[in-house]
């Protein structure tokens, strides 16, 4: 019997399905939330929430240890946390920590009780995800981090190791392609941390293998006129974990975009927001107030938008650029957010001003798309639909099962 913790990341579902198919009754997938467990159970996959094994004794231990840590901090007299503790009343750090530490300690105890054999994560940065990766290192349990995105450098991120996303914790790391491999190798060297990195490709790009778009169909679905150009504007999330990203660039640039759109009455515009940014309603409100006829589209319809768009503009160096690069005839542009893709001529760079955006749209639509196959490979790796297979085989290897399924290939 194998116990695998899997973080809530829908692109993992094909991997889970393959395990369930090959080892029926022999693998249990443990989830952090009941919603994720339900999503898997609805697909008839063997999933249990970790909370189902929590005991009263574990909870007592968690609260006791949390208080010990918090009391230790109260008397701390050096280190950077004293900048927080010195403003203790304003920051209310004790209640902040007391709301969080017991959960973290519960998870560690549950992992011990279950006897986790593998930890599969889509990031090792957010608190609980990082805790799981730390647990894996401390207990010698294999932990595979399959990044939910390719982190891209820009002028706002600062040098290596100035942002929390630079920190590596999981012992095994799957990467998309050469760019992400180099990105993590550089950081691993600087952090002097041992990590096995393999270029497997990322599962979210598998669906784009051999993408052959049907623009007319997509236009019908979105009620857009296929005779007129369509521009997709992809907004972003605010990176408060790095001081250089901690400003209102998203809002400022979107205001400039709306004014630019007002000047281009022959162009149809569709706005998409980052799935976890929590600012979709804000964008809708701005569009309404501007009076410009723009469609705001929830992220679930993003693939339809990719099929319809003639030009995709991304705020900052987003992964949507990489996805759009896999779809024929979608021109690529980046605006604001510190720029990005400085060395890649496949991506136009627009100034985050009204004239910069309006002029950039006209110029971009006037030229044909370049061949983006090298660009896509550099950032997204092989778009062959087999990332899931390579990651599945690696999971089996980490579990001590050597017989991989067919499909391992060119990484």
């Amino acid at each position, binding site marked *: 019997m194998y116990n695998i913790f899997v973080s809530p990341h829908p692109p993992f579902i094909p991997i889970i399905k393959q395990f369930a198919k090959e080892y029926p009754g022999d693998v249990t997938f443990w989830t952090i939330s009941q919603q994720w467990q339900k999503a898997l159970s609805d697909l008839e996959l063997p999933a249990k929430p970790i909370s189902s094994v929590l005991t009263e004794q574990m909870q007592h231990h968690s609260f006791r240890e949390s208080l010990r840590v918090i009391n230790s901090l109260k008397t701390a007299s050096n280190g950077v946390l004293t900048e927080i503790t010195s403003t203790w009343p304003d920051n209310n750090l004790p209640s902040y920590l007391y709301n969080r530490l017991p959960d*973290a300690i519960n998870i560690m105890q549950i992992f011990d009780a279950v006897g986790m054999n593998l930890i599969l994560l889509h990031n090792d940065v957010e608190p609980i995800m990082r805790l799981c990766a730390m647990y894996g290192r401390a207990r010698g349990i294999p932990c595979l981090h399959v990044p939910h995105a390719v982190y891209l450098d820009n002028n706002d991120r600062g040098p290596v190791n100035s942002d929390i996303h*630079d920190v590596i914790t999981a012992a095994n790391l799957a990467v998309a392609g050469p760019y992400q491999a180099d990105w993590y190798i550089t950081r691993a060297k600087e952090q002097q941390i041992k990590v096995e990195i393999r270029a497997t490709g990322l599962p979210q790009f598998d669906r784009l293998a051999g993408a052959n778009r049907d623009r007319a169909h997509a236009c019908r679905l979105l009620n857009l006129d296929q005779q007129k150009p369509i521009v997709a504007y992809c907004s972003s999330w605010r990176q408060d974990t790095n001081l*250089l990203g901690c400003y209102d660039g998203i809002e400022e640039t979107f205001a400039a975009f709306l004014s630019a759109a007002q000047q281009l009455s022959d162009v149809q515009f569709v706005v998409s927001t980052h799935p976890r940014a929590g600012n979709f309603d804000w964008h809708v409100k701005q569009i309404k107030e501007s009076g410009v006829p723009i469609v705001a589209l929830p992220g679930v319809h993003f693939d339809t938008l990719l099929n319809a768009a003639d030009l995709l503009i991304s705020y900052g160096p987003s992964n949507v650029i990489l996805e759009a690069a896999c779809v024929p005839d979608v021109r690529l542009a980046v605006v604001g957010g510190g720029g990005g893709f400085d060395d890649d001529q496949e991506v136009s760079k627009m100034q985050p001003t009204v004239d910069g955006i309006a002029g950039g749209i006209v110029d971009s639509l006037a030229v044909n798309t370049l061949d983006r196959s090298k660009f896509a490979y550099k950032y997204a790796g092989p778009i062959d639909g087999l990332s899931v297979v390579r990651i599945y085989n690696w999971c089996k290897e980490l579990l001590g099962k050597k017989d991989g399924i067919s499909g391992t290939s060119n990484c």
Partner: protein
Amino acid sequence: MKQRKTTIKAIELKPVEVVLDTNNPEFRTELIESSSRHLLGLETYAMSYTVDGIPILRAYTYELIQILNHTWLNNRLKKEESNV
């Protein structure tokens, strides 16, 4: 130099709206140094507090750094205001 509006946010703290000259090279250097110092400091300092053999506070760096950034920007704002 562009005066860039900045809304300072952090977990569980009230957002503060300020105007900071983030295109000023000296200010950008300060920002980078502050972020890097906070991150390194948090990582090192959190190693002191282990539970069941795991330095548990390290798991919260993602959120704690936002609080530190919030504190730093607030202090920087006060410094700028006092210079006016």
